[in-house]
């Protein structure tokens, strides 16, 4: 809009400059001559390239922080939508079990890859029986060593010792977890040794397992010979027969937190947007009726006084307690009181502007009430309506977190940011605190962005700041 006007205004300005120059020249020639009156020139002074939305946009763009947050938020929203369509994603809520042992992959730390160790070509591995054509389950565990079983140390190493166990040579780990019984001078081999724990005998000085579970490698990377295999190229041994990583780790049930967080973000944003839209619709409708229809004023004011007096949180708790927990319950409970603020604001504004001269003129000319409301009144209020909607989103997300904490939120089968934060809450001072940190970061980015953008937009939409 602003661009269009500028295009129209630009030649005008040039013409004005031209006109001024010619007048100056005329004045130099004849300083006391009369200036001619031209109706077209007089018209020109009335031209302004001011456009409300153009100026709002310009004022908004000046606020660097808000623009940066807007781009972050837009990227985040876009990503939230397309995340399930990307390759290498685990479905949210799916419990991921280890394929050979069947144990849940719980509390896997966040990582960019599923690779556990990289091995060179020619590494000998032992195959664990498991059916899959593309992947093979491997480890380098020759055999388990019982607690306090004796073996002979052939060669000492700070990390791994080469040992002989009943004629089978291999390596055992030498650290706090095995606590090998070693003599004063451990380098002087051979000698008998043992561990007080059950430990493992590895085929190489390295642990090619995931805490004892086998690792996975694509079958084509192996030259298989019975139970043994040799790698035919340098490759990664992975904790799962998949290259999809757990970017945010997994929770204690073995669900992928990355998938859960984005699914939760979708749920929370859905609640937030729905609440904002419903609140705006009800608020505008009631506000317009309240402000415009005089007969309804007394009734709606009485209703307002009652509803406004009830603490919002209490309504939320009560409705969530009485109704079955679910997304629709939460939305209903939040909307039940949320429209009040919007309705009152709209009503006050409408009372102020509805009897202004231009509206009286419009009414006298026979404009229908609906048209007056839609075309004459509401455009004044768009900026504030948008501000209120922008602030309703973080408000709704916060309420969801709160109500989940009280125990009235969504069931765990519907991941939401509130659910995830509530689950991660107990782990804050443990090594699994990432299960709280990731949902918190996403939530904070969303709420802070909405809040800042809403306020920056309200500032920008105020004509006082359009100078």
């Amino acid at each position, binding site marked *: 809009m602003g661009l269009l006007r500028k295009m129209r205004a630009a030649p005008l300005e040039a013409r004005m400059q031209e006109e001024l120059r010619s007048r100056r020249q005329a004045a130099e020639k004849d300083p006391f001559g009369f200036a001619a009156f031209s109706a077209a020139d007089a018209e020109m002074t009335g031209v302004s390239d001011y456009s409300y939305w153009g100026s709002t946009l310009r004022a908004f763009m000046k606020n660097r922080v808000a623009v940066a947050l807007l781009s972050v938020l837009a990227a985040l929203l876009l990503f939230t939508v397309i995340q399930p369509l990307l390759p290498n994603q685990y479905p949210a809520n799916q419990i991921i079990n280890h394929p050979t042992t069947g144990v849940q992959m719980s509390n896997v730390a966040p990582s960019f890859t599923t690779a556990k160790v990289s091995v060179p070509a020619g590494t000998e591995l032992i195959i664990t029986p498991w059916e899959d054509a593309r992947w093979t389950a491997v480890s380098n565990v020759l055999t388990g060593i019982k607690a306090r079983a004796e073996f002979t140390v052939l060669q000492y190493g700070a990390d791994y010792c080469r040992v002989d166990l009943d004629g089978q040579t291999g390596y055992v780990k030498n650290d706090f977890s095995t606590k090998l019984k070693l003599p004063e001078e451990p380098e002087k081999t051979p000698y008998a040794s043992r561990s007080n724990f059950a430990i493992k005998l590895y085929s190489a000085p390295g642990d090619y397992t995931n805490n004892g579970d086998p690792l996975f490698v694509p079958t084509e990377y192996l030259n298989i010979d019975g139970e043994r295999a040799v790698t035919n190229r340098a490759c990664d041994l992975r904790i799962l027969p998949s290259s999809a990583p757990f970017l945010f780790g997994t929770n204690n049930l073995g669900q992928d937190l990355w998938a859960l967080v984005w699914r939760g973000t979708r749920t929370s944003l859905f609640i937030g947007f729905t609440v904002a839209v419903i609140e705006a619709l009800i608020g505008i409708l009631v506000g317009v009726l309240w402000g415009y229809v005089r007969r309804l004023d007394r009734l709606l004011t009485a209703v307002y006084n*009652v509803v406004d007096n009830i603490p919002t949180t209490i309504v939320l*708790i*009560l409705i969530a307690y009485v109704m079955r927990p679910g997304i629709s319950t939460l939305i209903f409970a939040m909307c039940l009181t949320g429209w009040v603020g919007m309705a009152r604001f709209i009503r006050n504004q409408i009372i102020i502007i509805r009897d202004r001269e231009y509206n009286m003129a419009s009414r006298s000319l026979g404009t229908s009430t609906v048209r007056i409301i839609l075309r004459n009144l509401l455009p004044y209020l768009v900026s504030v309506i948008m501000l209120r909607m922008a602030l309703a989103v973080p408000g709704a997300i*916060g309420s969801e977190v709160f109500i989940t*904490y*009280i*125990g009235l939120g969504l069931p765990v089968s519907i991941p939401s940011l509130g659910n995830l934060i509530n689950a991660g809450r107990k782990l804050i001072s443990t090594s699994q605190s990432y299960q709280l940190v990731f949902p918190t970061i996403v939530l*904070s980015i969303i709420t802070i962005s909405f*809040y800042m953008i809403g306020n920056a937009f309200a500032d920008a939409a105020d004509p006082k700041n359009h100078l």
Partner: protein
Amino acid sequence: MVKYVLKRLLSAVVTLIVILTVVFVLVRQMPIEGYFDNFDKLDQNMISARLHQLGLTDPLHVQLFRFYGQLLRGDLGASARYRVGAPISEIIAQKAPLSIQMGVMAMALAMALGIPLGAAMARSKSKFWDKFGTVFIVFVNAVPAAVYYIYLQSYGSSLLGTSMLFSRDDWRTWILPVFSMSLGNIAYYAMWLRRYMVDELNKDYVKLAKAKGLSERAITMRHVFRNAFVPMIQYIPTSLMFTVCGSIYIESLYSVPGMGGLLVDVISRQDNPMVQAIVMIYSCVGIIGLLLGDLLMVVIDPRITFAKKEDVR
């Protein structure tokens, strides 16, 4: 003015009756398990006998009238699951004083910190305190309280070297719950006081005072601050509400044996009579808070008149 006060009182009473009725009717819709502590072990006859004994088989309006009768005698009914058979008013009488004490401390702390912060922000426009305060306000307003309370509890308690949970005898364990409860209000007071003070600073009398040669400090503290403080009164009921709602979360987070923790507790145990009673009490606190705020405004600002405002329209 008397007329206004009476009218305001009347509207508060009407609101109260509406809310109590709605809460009562809504809680009647709950499953009947919430009235028994051993529902699974009972057979059908025992259940209906107990329901009859509690009067829950009567028509709704009969129950409602009986409820109001009990209420006027100060009887809130008996707990069904939380502490079986104990009168709710007694349980609450044990729990409420601690909550009130904490709430008052939190509100006092919020004023003691929020008002100087707001004044400092207005005085140092776009310098350190203004920037610090703005970041603080945005953070507290935008990030859900539930989230930063968790971090505050965990890191705060290790910083102070105290237990994560509240214990009445150790004064150091009071610090974090009270501070957390006041955070929202600190931001709220600071935000509004700054706004009002900046508005006042642009007025003509400030220019006059400057021309007269008064020091910057005297102008802001003696003139601007006083004028800006009057409209702040209207935020007291809202901040009371903030404190009350914050206490629900904080008390259960720190295991404070107060009303807020009690509410979370009885909700998880589905104790219908208790939930009903506590929700009603909280609604009353909210209504009384708003009423007090309105009356306080009348007392403080004599410019408020109570002529019928019909002619404005």
